[in-house]
Protein backbone atom coordinates (compact mmCIF):
# COMPACT_ATOMS: atom_id res chain seq x y z
CA UNK A 1 0.00 0.00 0.00
CA UNK A 2 1.42 3.42 -0.92
CA UNK A 3 1.29 6.39 1.46
CA UNK A 4 -1.07 8.23 -0.86
CA UNK A 5 -3.51 5.29 -0.94
CA UNK A 6 -3.36 4.90 2.82
CA UNK A 7 -3.78 8.62 3.32
CA UNK A 8 -6.77 8.80 1.00
CA UNK A 9 -8.52 5.92 2.76
CA UNK A 10 -7.75 7.42 6.17
CA UNK A 11 -9.15 10.77 5.05
CA UNK A 12 -12.34 9.11 3.80
CA UNK A 13 -12.79 7.18 7.05
CA UNK A 14 -11.87 10.29 9.08
CA UNK A 15 -14.62 12.15 7.23
CA UNK A 16 -17.08 9.37 8.05
CA UNK A 17 -16.10 9.61 11.73
CA UNK A 18 -16.75 13.35 11.74
CA UNK A 19 -20.08 12.98 9.94
CA UNK A 20 -21.52 10.17 12.05
CA UNK A 21 -20.27 11.38 15.43
CA UNK A 22 -21.62 14.86 14.70
CA UNK A 23 -24.98 13.44 13.61
CA UNK A 24 -25.14 11.44 16.85
CA UNK A 25 -24.55 14.52 18.98
CA UNK A 26 -27.12 16.50 17.01
CA UNK A 27 -29.63 13.71 17.75
CA UNK A 28 -29.17 14.17 21.52
CA UNK A 29 -28.72 17.95 21.65
CA UNK A 30 -31.57 18.22 24.17
CA UNK A 31 -29.00 17.10 26.77
CA UNK A 32 -27.15 20.37 26.17
CA UNK A 33 -30.06 22.79 26.53
CA UNK A 34 -30.99 24.72 29.69
CA UNK A 35 -32.87 21.76 31.23
CA UNK A 36 -30.35 19.15 30.15
CA UNK A 37 -27.67 17.33 32.11
CA UNK A 38 -24.92 19.22 30.25
CA UNK A 39 -26.70 22.62 30.39
CA UNK A 40 -24.54 25.66 29.52
CA UNK A 41 -24.47 26.99 33.10
CA UNK A 42 -23.05 23.68 34.34
CA UNK A 43 -20.49 23.67 31.53
CA UNK A 44 -19.26 27.19 32.36
CA UNK A 45 -18.80 26.14 35.97
CA UNK A 46 -16.96 22.99 34.88
CA UNK A 47 -14.56 24.92 32.65
CA UNK A 48 -13.09 26.56 35.75
CA UNK A 49 -10.50 23.75 35.94
CA UNK A 50 -9.40 24.07 32.30
CA UNK A 51 -6.33 26.03 31.20
CA UNK A 52 -7.07 29.66 30.27
CA UNK A 53 -6.31 29.16 26.54
CA UNK A 54 -8.69 26.24 26.31
CA UNK A 55 -11.37 28.10 28.28
CA UNK A 56 -11.01 31.01 25.83
CA UNK A 57 -11.34 28.58 22.90
CA UNK A 58 -14.41 26.83 24.24
CA UNK A 59 -16.43 29.48 26.05
CA UNK A 60 -17.93 31.10 22.88
CA UNK A 61 -19.37 27.70 21.95
CA UNK A 62 -20.98 26.75 25.26
CA UNK A 63 -24.42 28.16 24.46
CA UNK A 64 -26.85 26.15 22.35
CA UNK A 65 -26.41 28.24 19.19
CA UNK A 66 -22.63 28.39 19.44
CA UNK A 67 -22.36 24.64 19.92
CA UNK A 68 -24.71 23.87 17.04
CA UNK A 69 -22.51 26.15 14.89
CA UNK A 70 -19.48 24.02 15.82
CA UNK A 71 -21.36 20.87 14.84
CA UNK A 72 -22.40 22.34 11.48
CA UNK A 73 -18.81 23.38 10.80
CA UNK A 74 -17.72 19.80 11.54
CA UNK A 75 -20.03 18.57 8.78
CA UNK A 76 -18.34 20.98 6.35
CA UNK A 77 -14.88 19.91 7.54
CA UNK A 78 -15.82 16.31 6.78
CA UNK A 79 -16.43 17.31 3.15
CA UNK A 80 -13.09 19.16 3.00
CA UNK A 81 -11.20 16.05 4.10
CA UNK A 82 -11.94 14.61 0.64
CA UNK A 83 -10.16 17.45 -1.18
CA UNK A 84 -6.80 16.28 -2.57
CA UNK A 85 -4.91 19.40 -1.54
CA UNK A 86 -2.77 19.06 1.63
CA UNK A 87 -3.36 22.64 2.76
CA UNK A 88 -7.12 22.18 2.53
CA UNK A 89 -7.47 18.72 4.06
CA UNK A 90 -4.75 19.55 6.59
CA UNK A 91 -6.53 22.73 7.62
CA UNK A 92 -9.78 20.79 7.85
CA UNK A 93 -8.11 18.10 9.99
CA UNK A 94 -6.55 20.75 12.25
CA UNK A 95 -9.88 22.50 12.76
CA UNK A 96 -11.53 19.11 13.30
CA UNK A 97 -9.03 18.40 16.10
CA UNK A 98 -9.98 21.70 17.77
CA UNK A 99 -13.68 20.98 17.31
CA UNK A 100 -13.16 17.52 18.83
CA UNK A 101 -11.64 19.21 21.87
CA UNK A 102 -14.62 21.57 22.09
CA UNK A 103 -17.07 18.65 21.90
CA UNK A 104 -15.15 16.61 24.49
CA UNK A 105 -14.84 19.58 26.84
CA UNK A 106 -18.55 20.39 26.40
CA UNK A 107 -19.31 16.90 27.75
CA UNK A 108 -17.03 17.39 30.74
CA UNK A 109 -13.95 15.73 29.26
CA UNK A 110 -15.23 13.01 26.96
CA UNK A 111 -18.47 11.88 25.37
CA UNK A 112 -17.59 8.31 24.47
CA UNK A 113 -14.29 7.43 26.16
CA UNK A 114 -11.73 5.58 24.05
CA UNK A 115 -13.51 6.20 20.75
CA UNK A 116 -13.08 9.96 21.29
CA UNK A 117 -9.39 9.32 21.88
CA UNK A 118 -8.93 7.25 18.72
CA UNK A 119 -10.93 9.74 16.63
CA UNK A 120 -8.56 12.45 17.82
CA UNK A 121 -5.56 10.26 16.96
CA UNK A 122 -6.85 9.84 13.39
CA UNK A 123 -7.56 13.57 12.91
CA UNK A 124 -4.23 14.55 14.45
CA UNK A 125 -2.42 12.06 12.20
CA UNK A 126 -4.13 13.54 9.15
CA UNK A 127 -3.12 17.03 10.24
CA UNK A 128 0.52 15.95 10.67
CA UNK A 129 0.38 14.20 7.28
CA UNK A 130 -0.50 17.52 5.62
CA UNK A 131 2.43 19.47 7.05
CA UNK A 132 5.01 20.81 4.57
CA UNK A 133 7.95 18.46 5.12
CA UNK A 134 9.01 15.48 3.07
CA UNK A 135 8.19 12.68 5.49
CA UNK A 136 4.93 14.26 6.71
CA UNK A 137 2.59 11.63 5.26
CA UNK A 138 4.73 8.78 6.59
CA UNK A 139 4.99 10.32 10.06
CA UNK A 140 1.25 11.04 10.23
CA UNK A 141 0.40 7.49 9.19
CA UNK A 142 3.04 6.04 11.54
CA UNK A 143 1.53 7.96 14.45
CA UNK A 144 -1.94 6.58 13.70
CA UNK A 145 -0.57 3.05 13.22
CA UNK A 146 1.48 3.19 16.43
CA UNK A 147 -1.50 4.28 18.53
CA UNK A 148 -3.78 1.67 16.95
CA UNK A 149 -1.29 -1.12 17.43
CA UNK A 150 -0.71 -0.12 21.04
CA UNK A 151 -4.41 0.15 21.73
CA UNK A 152 -4.71 -3.59 21.11
CA UNK A 153 -1.39 -4.55 22.69
CA UNK A 154 -1.82 -2.55 25.93
CA UNK A 155 -5.44 -3.71 26.27
CA UNK A 156 -4.17 -7.31 25.94
CA UNK A 157 -1.27 -6.92 28.37
CA UNK A 158 -3.36 -5.30 31.11
CA UNK A 159 -5.92 -8.11 30.79
CA UNK A 160 -3.48 -11.00 30.79
CA UNK A 161 -1.93 -9.69 34.01
CA UNK A 162 -5.31 -10.03 35.77
CA UNK A 163 -6.21 -13.39 37.34
CA UNK A 164 -9.90 -12.60 36.79
CA UNK A 165 -9.33 -12.35 33.05
CA UNK A 166 -7.22 -15.51 32.93
CA UNK A 167 -10.00 -17.44 34.68
CA UNK A 168 -12.79 -16.03 32.49
CA UNK A 169 -14.42 -14.43 35.55
CA UNK A 170 -13.86 -10.86 34.36
CA UNK A 171 -15.65 -11.34 31.05
CA UNK A 172 -18.62 -12.94 32.81
CA UNK A 173 -18.74 -9.97 35.20
CA UNK A 174 -18.64 -7.41 32.38
CA UNK A 175 -21.43 -9.30 30.61
CA UNK A 176 -23.58 -8.95 33.73
CA UNK A 177 -22.78 -5.25 34.20
CA UNK A 178 -26.01 -3.27 34.30
CA UNK A 179 -24.62 -0.16 32.62
CA UNK A 180 -24.26 -1.65 29.12
CA UNK A 181 -27.81 -2.91 28.81
CA UNK A 182 -26.58 -6.21 27.38
CA UNK A 183 -29.41 -8.36 26.02
CA UNK A 184 -30.03 -11.09 28.64
CA UNK A 185 -29.69 -13.94 26.10
CA UNK A 186 -26.13 -12.74 25.29
CA UNK A 187 -25.22 -12.51 28.98
CA UNK A 188 -26.50 -16.02 29.63
CA UNK A 189 -24.94 -17.56 26.53
CA UNK A 190 -21.51 -15.88 26.62
CA UNK A 191 -21.41 -16.02 30.41
CA UNK A 192 -21.24 -19.83 30.51
CA UNK A 193 -17.95 -20.62 32.30
CA UNK A 194 -16.30 -22.63 29.50
CA UNK A 195 -17.33 -20.22 26.78
CA UNK A 196 -16.30 -17.18 28.87
CA UNK A 197 -12.90 -18.79 29.51
CA UNK A 198 -12.35 -19.56 25.81
CA UNK A 199 -13.54 -16.11 24.71
CA UNK A 200 -11.32 -14.41 27.32
CA UNK A 201 -8.21 -16.22 26.13
CA UNK A 202 -9.10 -15.62 22.48
CA UNK A 203 -9.40 -11.88 23.15
CA UNK A 204 -6.20 -11.70 25.22
CA UNK A 205 -4.10 -13.69 22.75
CA UNK A 206 -5.43 -11.75 19.79
CA UNK A 207 -4.73 -8.39 21.44
CA UNK A 208 -1.26 -9.34 22.65
CA UNK A 209 -0.34 -10.84 19.25
CA UNK A 210 -1.42 -7.80 17.28
CA UNK A 211 2.13 -6.32 16.92
CA UNK A 212 3.15 -9.51 15.05
CA UNK A 213 1.22 -8.06 12.12
CA UNK A 214 4.23 -5.81 11.49
CA UNK A 215 6.18 -8.88 10.35
CA UNK A 216 4.15 -9.42 7.17
CA UNK A 217 1.44 -7.36 5.46
CA UNK A 218 -0.64 -10.53 4.88
CA UNK A 219 -0.57 -11.26 8.61
CA UNK A 220 -1.55 -7.67 9.36
CA UNK A 221 -4.46 -8.04 6.93
CA UNK A 222 -5.65 -11.17 8.73
CA UNK A 223 -5.33 -9.53 12.17
CA UNK A 224 -7.24 -6.49 10.93
CA UNK A 225 -10.05 -8.74 9.69
CA UNK A 226 -10.24 -10.37 13.15
CA UNK A 227 -10.08 -6.94 14.79
CA UNK A 228 -12.98 -5.69 12.70
CA UNK A 229 -15.09 -8.69 13.72
CA UNK A 230 -14.03 -8.12 17.33
CA UNK A 231 -15.31 -4.52 17.22
CA UNK A 232 -18.53 -5.65 15.54
CA UNK A 233 -18.95 -8.13 18.40
CA UNK A 234 -18.41 -5.35 20.93
CA UNK A 235 -21.11 -3.32 19.21
CA UNK A 236 -23.56 -6.25 19.29
CA UNK A 237 -22.87 -7.09 22.94
CA UNK A 238 -21.95 -3.77 24.56
CA UNK A 239 -23.44 -1.31 22.03
CA UNK A 240 -20.05 0.34 21.40
CA UNK A 241 -20.72 1.38 17.80
CA UNK A 242 -18.28 4.30 17.68
CA UNK A 243 -15.32 2.03 18.24
CA UNK A 244 -16.00 0.18 14.96
CA UNK A 245 -15.40 3.18 12.70
CA UNK A 246 -12.81 4.91 14.89
CA UNK A 247 -10.56 1.82 14.78
CA UNK A 248 -11.39 1.01 11.14
CA UNK A 249 -10.00 4.45 10.24
CA UNK A 250 -6.59 3.33 11.53
CA UNK A 251 -6.40 0.15 9.42
CA UNK A 252 -5.05 1.79 6.21
CA UNK A 253 -2.19 3.24 8.29
CA UNK A 254 -1.50 -0.18 9.84
CA UNK A 255 -1.44 -1.84 6.43
CA UNK A 256 0.83 0.87 5.07
CA UNK A 257 3.31 0.56 7.95
CA UNK A 258 3.31 -3.24 7.65
CA UNK A 259 4.00 -3.01 3.91
CA UNK A 260 6.83 -0.50 4.52
CA UNK A 261 8.33 -2.81 7.15
CA UNK A 262 8.33 -5.61 4.60
CA UNK A 263 10.42 -3.46 2.24
CA UNK A 264 13.29 -3.00 4.69
CA UNK A 265 16.31 -4.90 3.32
CA UNK A 266 17.45 -7.71 5.59
CA UNK A 267 20.80 -9.44 5.91
CA UNK A 268 24.04 -8.85 4.01
Amino acid at each position, binding site marked *: MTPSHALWLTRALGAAILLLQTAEILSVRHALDERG*VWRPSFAREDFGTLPAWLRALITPFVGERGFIAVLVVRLLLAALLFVDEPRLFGGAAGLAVLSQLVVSARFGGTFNGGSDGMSLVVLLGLFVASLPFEAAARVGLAYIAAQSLLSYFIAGVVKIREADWRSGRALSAFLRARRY*GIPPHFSRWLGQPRLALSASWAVMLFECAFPLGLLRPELMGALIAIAFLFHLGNWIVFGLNRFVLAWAATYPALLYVASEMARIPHGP
Partner: protein
Amino acid sequence: MLVREACPEAVDVLHPLSVPPRHRNGSGNLFRFGRPPVEGGYAGASMALVSLALLGVALALGLFLRGEVRSSRARLLRTLVPSWRFFAEIDAVPILEYQVGEGPWREGLPPVPRGIGSLVLNGPSNLRLAEHGVVEALLEELDGLPVDRAPSLLRYRMVQAMVEARMREAGEVGPYAFRLVASDGVSPDEEVFRSVVHRPA
Protein backbone atom coordinates in the same frame (compact mmCIF):
# COMPACT_ATOMS: atom_id res chain seq x y z
CA MET B 1 -1.31 9.52 39.35
CA LEU B 2 -3.31 12.29 37.76
CA VAL B 3 -2.97 12.57 34.02
CA ARG B 4 -1.94 16.22 34.21
CA GLU B 5 1.15 15.21 36.17
CA ALA B 6 2.24 13.11 33.25
CA CYS B 7 1.23 15.66 30.66
CA PRO B 8 4.60 17.19 29.73
CA GLU B 9 5.63 13.95 28.04
CA ALA B 10 2.41 14.04 26.05
CA VAL B 11 3.76 16.98 24.09
CA ASP B 12 6.21 14.60 22.41
CA VAL B 13 3.35 12.57 21.05
CA LEU B 14 1.14 15.42 20.04
CA HIS B 15 3.70 17.40 18.11
CA PRO B 16 4.89 16.16 14.75
CA LEU B 17 8.26 14.52 14.70
CA SER B 18 10.47 15.61 11.87
CA VAL B 19 12.86 13.21 10.25
CA PRO B 20 16.25 14.83 9.53
CA PRO B 21 17.32 14.63 5.88
CA ARG B 22 20.20 12.31 6.72
CA HIS B 23 17.71 9.65 7.79
CA ARG B 24 16.10 9.58 4.37
CA ASN B 25 17.06 8.00 1.05
CA GLY B 26 20.40 8.82 -0.47
CA SER B 27 23.91 9.25 0.83
CA GLY B 28 24.79 10.19 4.37
CA ASN B 29 22.07 7.99 5.86
CA LEU B 30 22.51 6.50 9.27
CA PHE B 31 21.32 3.05 8.28
CA ARG B 32 24.03 0.72 7.01
CA PHE B 33 22.62 -2.48 5.61
CA GLY B 34 25.76 -3.55 3.73
CA ARG B 35 24.17 -3.51 0.27
CA PRO B 36 22.96 -0.82 -2.11
CA PRO B 37 19.59 0.63 -1.23
CA VAL B 38 16.61 -0.89 -2.93
CA GLU B 39 13.75 1.38 -3.89
CA GLY B 40 11.97 2.40 -0.72
CA GLY B 41 14.50 0.55 1.44
CA TYR B 42 15.76 3.53 3.39
CA ALA B 43 12.34 5.14 3.38
CA GLY B 44 11.17 1.92 4.98
CA ALA B 45 14.01 2.07 7.48
CA SER B 46 13.24 5.66 8.47
CA MET B 47 9.59 4.61 8.67
CA ALA B 48 10.58 1.79 11.00
CA LEU B 49 12.63 4.13 13.18
CA VAL B 50 9.83 6.68 13.43
CA SER B 51 7.30 3.93 14.17
CA LEU B 52 9.49 2.40 16.86
CA ALA B 53 10.04 5.79 18.50
CA LEU B 54 6.31 6.53 18.48
CA LEU B 55 5.56 3.04 19.75
CA GLY B 56 7.98 3.51 22.63
CA VAL B 57 6.54 6.84 23.70
CA ALA B 58 2.92 5.72 23.36
CA LEU B 59 3.62 2.40 25.13
CA ALA B 60 5.21 4.22 28.05
CA LEU B 61 2.28 6.62 28.30
CA GLY B 62 -0.26 3.84 27.93
CA LEU B 63 1.25 1.67 30.63
CA PHE B 64 1.92 4.44 33.13
CA LEU B 65 -1.21 6.54 32.76
CA ARG B 66 -3.65 5.03 35.17
CA GLY B 67 -5.72 5.90 38.18
CA GLU B 68 -8.68 8.15 38.75
CA VAL B 69 -9.32 11.25 36.72
CA ARG B 70 -11.32 13.66 38.82
CA SER B 71 -11.37 16.95 36.95
CA SER B 72 -12.63 17.82 33.48
CA ARG B 73 -9.10 18.92 32.68
CA ALA B 74 -7.73 15.49 33.54
CA ARG B 75 -10.50 13.76 31.57
CA LEU B 76 -9.78 15.93 28.54
CA LEU B 77 -6.08 15.10 28.78
CA ARG B 78 -7.01 11.42 28.93
CA THR B 79 -8.76 11.93 25.57
CA LEU B 80 -5.61 13.54 24.18
CA VAL B 81 -3.32 10.87 25.60
CA PRO B 82 -5.38 7.69 25.72
CA SER B 83 -4.24 4.90 28.03
CA TRP B 84 -5.99 2.08 26.08
CA ARG B 85 -6.61 0.12 29.29
CA PHE B 86 -10.02 -1.19 28.24
CA PHE B 87 -11.97 -3.47 30.60
CA ALA B 88 -8.80 -4.20 32.55
CA GLU B 89 -10.19 -4.96 36.00
CA ILE B 90 -13.52 -5.86 37.55
CA ASP B 91 -14.48 -2.62 39.28
CA ALA B 92 -17.72 -1.99 41.07
CA VAL B 93 -19.47 0.69 39.04
CA PRO B 94 -22.17 2.89 40.57
CA ILE B 95 -25.72 2.47 39.31
CA LEU B 96 -28.15 5.35 39.76
CA GLU B 97 -31.54 4.65 41.34
CA TYR B 98 -34.21 7.09 42.45
CA GLN B 99 -37.29 7.04 44.63
CA VAL B 100 -40.31 9.32 44.40
CA GLY B 101 -41.96 9.84 47.78
CA GLU B 102 -42.14 6.49 49.56
CA GLY B 103 -42.33 4.57 46.27
CA PRO B 104 -40.01 1.82 45.07
CA TRP B 105 -36.44 2.47 43.96
CA ARG B 106 -36.31 2.69 40.16
CA GLU B 107 -33.42 2.52 37.74
CA GLY B 108 -32.28 6.07 36.97
CA LEU B 109 -30.50 5.19 33.74
CA PRO B 110 -32.37 2.30 32.15
CA PRO B 111 -30.71 0.75 29.07
CA VAL B 112 -31.71 2.18 25.71
CA PRO B 113 -33.04 -0.45 23.28
CA ARG B 114 -30.86 -0.69 20.17
CA GLY B 115 -31.47 -2.11 16.73
CA ILE B 116 -29.39 -2.80 13.64
CA GLY B 117 -29.25 0.93 12.78
CA SER B 118 -27.36 1.58 16.02
CA LEU B 119 -24.17 0.41 14.30
CA VAL B 120 -24.19 3.70 12.41
CA LEU B 121 -26.08 6.07 14.70
CA ASN B 122 -26.46 5.27 18.36
CA GLY B 123 -26.80 8.71 19.95
CA PRO B 124 -29.24 7.88 22.78
CA SER B 125 -27.29 4.80 23.86
CA ASN B 126 -23.97 6.68 23.81
CA LEU B 127 -25.59 9.53 25.74
CA ARG B 128 -26.65 6.97 28.35
CA LEU B 129 -23.04 5.77 28.66
CA ALA B 130 -21.93 9.40 29.08
CA GLU B 131 -24.54 9.78 31.86
CA HIS B 132 -23.11 6.68 33.55
CA GLY B 133 -19.74 8.41 33.30
CA VAL B 134 -21.10 11.41 35.22
CA VAL B 135 -22.48 9.11 37.93
CA GLU B 136 -19.09 7.39 38.17
CA ALA B 137 -17.32 10.76 38.41
CA LEU B 138 -19.73 11.80 41.18
CA LEU B 139 -18.85 8.73 43.23
CA GLU B 140 -15.14 9.52 42.86
CA GLU B 141 -15.73 13.13 43.96
CA LEU B 142 -17.78 11.97 46.97
CA ASP B 143 -14.83 9.96 48.25
CA GLY B 144 -13.70 11.57 51.50
CA LEU B 145 -16.21 14.44 51.30
CA PRO B 146 -18.60 15.18 54.19
CA VAL B 147 -22.09 14.06 53.10
CA ASP B 148 -23.63 17.50 53.75
CA ARG B 149 -21.29 19.06 51.17
CA ALA B 150 -22.36 16.65 48.41
CA PRO B 151 -25.19 18.85 47.00
CA SER B 152 -22.66 21.60 46.26
CA LEU B 153 -20.82 19.35 43.80
CA LEU B 154 -21.42 20.07 40.12
CA ARG B 155 -21.84 16.40 39.28
CA TYR B 156 -24.34 15.94 42.09
CA ARG B 157 -26.50 18.62 40.43
CA MET B 158 -25.98 16.96 37.03
CA VAL B 159 -27.24 13.68 38.50
CA GLN B 160 -30.21 15.55 39.96
CA ALA B 161 -30.92 16.82 36.43
CA MET B 162 -30.85 13.21 35.16
CA VAL B 163 -33.33 12.08 37.82
CA GLU B 164 -35.65 15.00 37.15
CA ALA B 165 -35.53 14.26 33.40
CA ARG B 166 -36.51 10.61 34.10
CA MET B 167 -39.35 11.81 36.35
CA ARG B 168 -40.63 14.16 33.64
CA GLU B 169 -40.53 11.30 31.10
CA ALA B 170 -42.45 9.03 33.49
CA GLY B 171 -44.91 11.78 34.50
CA GLU B 172 -43.83 11.47 38.14
CA VAL B 173 -44.12 14.40 40.54
CA GLY B 174 -43.20 14.96 44.16
CA PRO B 175 -40.17 14.90 46.41
CA TYR B 176 -37.48 12.46 45.41
CA ALA B 177 -34.16 11.06 46.54
CA PHE B 178 -31.48 9.19 44.62
CA ARG B 179 -28.87 6.67 45.59
CA LEU B 180 -25.78 5.09 44.09
CA VAL B 181 -25.55 1.30 44.18
CA ALA B 182 -22.17 -0.35 43.59
CA SER B 183 -22.48 -3.23 41.13
CA ASP B 184 -19.60 -5.37 39.88
CA GLY B 185 -21.57 -8.17 38.26
CA VAL B 186 -20.18 -10.65 40.82
CA SER B 187 -21.09 -9.63 44.38
CA PRO B 188 -24.57 -8.51 45.47
CA ASP B 189 -25.23 -4.82 44.76
CA GLU B 190 -24.51 -2.48 47.67
CA GLU B 191 -25.77 1.04 48.39
CA VAL B 192 -22.81 3.41 48.67
CA PHE B 193 -24.51 6.81 48.75
CA ARG B 194 -27.99 8.19 49.37
CA SER B 195 -28.97 11.80 48.70
CA VAL B 196 -31.16 14.01 50.82
CA VAL B 197 -34.77 14.46 49.67
CA HIS B 198 -35.21 17.05 46.91
CA ARG B 199 -38.18 18.73 45.28
CA PRO B 200 -38.10 18.98 41.47
CA ALA B 201 -37.08 22.45 40.21
